[in-house]
């Protein structure tokens, strides 16, 4: 039976050639237009309320936004975030590899570290470290449990800057470890087998085969973590270190009535930094999707240009 079934009967008979030549008129969505209008009105109201409410003191905002004291705080925030991100990630990779190792002692140590530092609130950790002189009066470098070569007084060594970087890094490493581990175990077991079957040394199996693939899974979670860290640096003001939030806080206490514009200044700077991180995240994700997607998605600029081209604005 190879004969094709008869065409379904149409109420008003139409020529087949005509059917084939017609374009399909897309379905209209009137309620989408209503929802769009409502959303725009609400947005306009919110902006209006922000701009016209005198409590925000936009003139004061303009005064503070680029004040050197604020920019110094911003710079310190960036330093703390950057250093803690680097040390935290390095520590996290080491901890993740330890947790995945076949050595039960290494596994237990890494698990214990993560358990401990995820349990201690960052603010408590920072206060502990800032008062470390109360715990250890000297730190020494030498053979473990044996003679020491150099001794530091904990007082000299632990400047508040150092305490902040150390505390943030210790905390960050515990979270980064779990993110890195989740990325590594998301890579197909067959990849390790193939690398082993080719005789690649263990270090190269990780560096060249596993980590680049794990990175793709790691980036979204780690970007979240970094944004958390960026804002988390505001906690270090309790060690009297003047990063962005510390500056806002102290300036507000000496300039009465300025707290709202100062908070807005801090908020906008945090929003700008977070936005920059999001952009970096987008391009990193795109880079590491190499090979995972058949075609890499266009960048927002390429998409914008494409849509302008269809409207006829650009070529």
């Amino acid at each position, binding site marked *: 039976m190879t004969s094709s079934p008869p065409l379904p009967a149409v109420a008003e008979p139409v020529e087949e050639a005509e059917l084939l030549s017609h374009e399909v008129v897309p379905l209209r969505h009137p309620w989408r237009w209503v929802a769009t209008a409502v959303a725009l009105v609400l947005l306009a109201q919110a902006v209006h309320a922000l701009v016209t409410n005198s409590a925000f003191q936009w003139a004061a905002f303009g005064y503070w936004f680029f004040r050197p004291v604020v920019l110094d705080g911003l710079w310190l925030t960036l330093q703390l975030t950057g250093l803690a991100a680097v040390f935290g990630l390095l520590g996290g990779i080491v901890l993740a590899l330890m947790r995945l190792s076949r050595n039960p002692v290494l596994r237990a140590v890494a698990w214990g570290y993560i358990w401990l530092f995820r349990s201690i609130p960052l603010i408590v950790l920072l206060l502990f470290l800032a008062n470390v002189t109360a715990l250890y009066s000297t730190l020494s470098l030498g053979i473990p449990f044996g003679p020491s070569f150099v001794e530091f007084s904990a007082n000299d060594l632990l400047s508040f800057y150092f305490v902040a970087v150390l505390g943030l890094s210790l905390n960050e490493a515990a979270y980064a470890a779990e993110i890195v581990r989740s990325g590594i175990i998301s890579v*197909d077991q*067959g*990849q390790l*087998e*193939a*690398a*082993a*079957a*080719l*005789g*690649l*040394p*263990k270090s*190269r199996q990780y560096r*060249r*085969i596993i980590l*680049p*693939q794990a990175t*793709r899974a790691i980036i979204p979670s780690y970007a979240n973590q970094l944004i958390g860290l960026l804002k988390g640096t505001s906690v270090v003001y309790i060690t009297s270190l003047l990063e962005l939030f510390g500056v806002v806080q102290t300036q507000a206490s000496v300039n009465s009535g300025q707290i709202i514009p100062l908070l807005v200044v801090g908020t906008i700077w945090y929003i700008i930094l977070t936005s920059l991180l999001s952009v970096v995240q987008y391009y990193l994700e795109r880079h*590491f999707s*190499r*090979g*995972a*997607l*058949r075609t890499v998605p266009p960048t927002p600029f390429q998409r914008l240009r494409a849509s302008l081209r269809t409207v006829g604005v650009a070529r």
Partner: protein
Amino acid sequence: MTAAVVVRGAVKSYGAHRVLDEVDFIARAGEVTAIVGPSGSGKSTLLRAINYLEPLDSGYVTVQGELIGVRLHRGRLHQLSERAILRQRSRIGFVFQNFNLFPHLSVLENVIEAPITKGVPKPQAVARAQELLVKVGLKDKAGAYPRQLSGGQQQRVAIARALALEPDLVLFDEPTSALDPELVGEVLTVLRDLAAAGTTMVVVTHEIGFARDVADHVVFLDAGRIVEQGPPRQVLLAPEHARTREFLGKLV
């Protein structure tokens, strides 16, 4: 012909289940040895024991006369270092059922990865890789990524990758089982070419036609034991054992 692979008294259990039960196996140099049998019969485990992806509980494996994964010292077998095992594996090509190409590396990068790691200068490794890609019919795909290729093309890249180190022998673990029927032929063609060139091959396969036409020696495995073995005409066309006949009968 000398023995390329010797497996003696291979035993492997997963819990109470004995996957390999005292298997003795030989693959001769320059020949194609096909391992056939029902699923769960231990075929893949036997193959993976040959390059120590699956260490045996007891028994031993030699390739070209060299013990794999262990060494004999004062009458006892000692496990080799990770590094030494990896060095041995680089002389044994392995082709997986699911290809296991590195998806983030291009076809060319997949093929040159192992030679480069072993210290072959890059231009030389690239030249050799391009030769191999011609051999498997993929010379235009050097810059493509694995996911842009069909299953048959991916498996041919995997074969080129396994050959890049000029191994003494190549192991194939059901190389066509994950492929659409129409793509099986292109991979089998490459295997035939390799066989014709005198490559020592051990192939776990469900392609009885391929085993009959290309293999020099066929081993029928069931429940972790070798039921019968011999030339393909004998094992596949005139099997002696009822179990072999039953298995082959189901495939027709």
